[in-house]
């Protein structure tokens, strides 16, 4: 790139030399030894058991079958709604 398409600010502030990175002070944010950070945990007991296992849901469960049936009904209703309004004029 030969030239920048913008006018660069060249005032005193812009000319101020930056210190080399190696001289900059760094803070390790991952340690809690100094008491600097306090981790907040989620509330409740961690569990490997899923909600469906607790509720006893399986893929052949009647509750799931009914859910699928009702979701299909909603989808069918929407498609009917799109077709049923072809001759309507709202005035």
């Amino acid at each position, binding site marked *: 790139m030969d030239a920048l398409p913008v006018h660069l600010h060249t005032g005193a502030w812009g000319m101020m030399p930056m210190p080399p990175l190696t001289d900059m002070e760094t803070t390790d944010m991952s340690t809690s030894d100094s008491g600097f950070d306090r981790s907040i945990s989620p509330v*409740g007991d961690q569990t490997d058991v899923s909600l469906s296992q607790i*509720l*006893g849901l399986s893929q052949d469960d009647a509750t799931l079958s009914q859910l699928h049936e009702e979701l299909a009904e909603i989808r069918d209703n929407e498609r009917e709604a799109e077709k049923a*309004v072809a001759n309507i004029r709202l005035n």
Partner: protein
Amino acid sequence: MINLRDWSVGDQPAVIYDMTVPGAWVQLRQFYAHRGNRPLGRILEIAENHGVVSVLVERRYVDADWRSQLARFYNGTLRRFPSVCHRMHFFGAPVPDDLSQLDALQSSYHGYTILRPFPIAPVGRTMIRPPAELADAVRCETTEEVDVFGYRLKITAMPFISQDTQLLRCAHAAVWMVLRHASATYGLPQALPHTIFEAALGGVMAGRQLPNDGLSPYQLMAAMESLGLSPTSKNLPQSSEDEQASRSLRLYGMACRYINSALPPIVISNTHAWVLVAYRRAASAGNTKIQLWRHDDARGPYLPVDDPWAEPEDAHQPWTAMYLPLLPKVYLDAERAETVGRSFLNAFRNSALYSGSTVQAADNRTNEDEQCTVRTFLMTSTKFKQTLAQRGVPGELAAAYRRTPMSRYIWVVEIVDRLSRSNKQADVLGEIILDSTLTQFEPLSDPNCALAVHIGTFAFIPGIDQSPHRQLNLPHMSAYLSACPLLAVGAGEEPDEPSTPD
């Protein structure tokens, strides 16, 4: 046509009408409307029933909506139309002649209506306090600050506008009302009449567009979509028998879910469109527990619906479809949300957790009207979290909810104890919280399917992405107040949403 000199009389900035004078209401109506315009008649009827004794009319009100109509259509006609409107304010106390300290009349201020210089369809933007019958109703409404001669007044109402029969038709007016409300409630952009007219030119046109012969439902859908909503449409049951068999697609159930969510649904017949704006717990011919109320641009604001399947006027027959003004980031609709919520509730009932639960105690009552039902609504997750303590949600559960990542909008399916509700007590026994940006529910065992499930003393928070699941066993559970913002703010009485058969 209105005479220009009659419309802008001299240099008087305002006129005050004493409405206690016999015949004043009739005279006012006759001045502004030909042939007893129904929307204006309804507005004046509401005002009269509120006990309005003074009407203050600003005679040079520059109305953005009317200017928009002028620019897009009326300025193209040979005859001239005045460019200013009149704005009519309703007060339940006398307005002083010197127009001083009008803000002291806030408690008796009942709102305003803007009158176009167009007697065949005079009613422009209107914000009028709902009728007294709606005091205990769940209402879609916004609060607007009104400047009246340098004094600030407030009015809370659902915005109303009537069509002008040439540029704006019923569907345009319905979209205007929904958007005006959504602008104040959800931050959507406001849309002026010409913007709505242009937006409705998308879709499949039906007939001539200017002067407008009416819109097709496709144009209605296109206008809503391009103006910042993300609507869906649903076919409506065609009889009360169909209604009973419709599960999550019941007319009354859908209406209540969207009104609960401050998303007023647009209903269409074969020739007309209107907006459902409120429901209250009162028997009507169409439902033993619920009465719906609508804004009908051709008939006026806040009109009760007695029976959707036996409407007295042809324009309302039949209720064909409902256009539901969902927000763009709400990918999941209320019907699917409630269906999924019910599935979790039913799974809970079939599990070992059910025995001894508060849900079982309610289910065991012999009177069906005292058992459990669900209440479904959309709200922001921030509002949900911020109101946990004041609603009486147990501390441990509230802390867990506050630390749970949630989508901006959430669907809340509350499990409601009907007996407590009818006794006007805290009635929420639990809730299923759903991510409004998730639409895939197969399989239901997907750990991300619900953001949280709480029923009785059991609460489960599936981890988002790869976070571990968390389970809470609450030591004791008592019912708490609903999270639904409209119930908390507007209703003196908890509404009874019609239940969906399991």
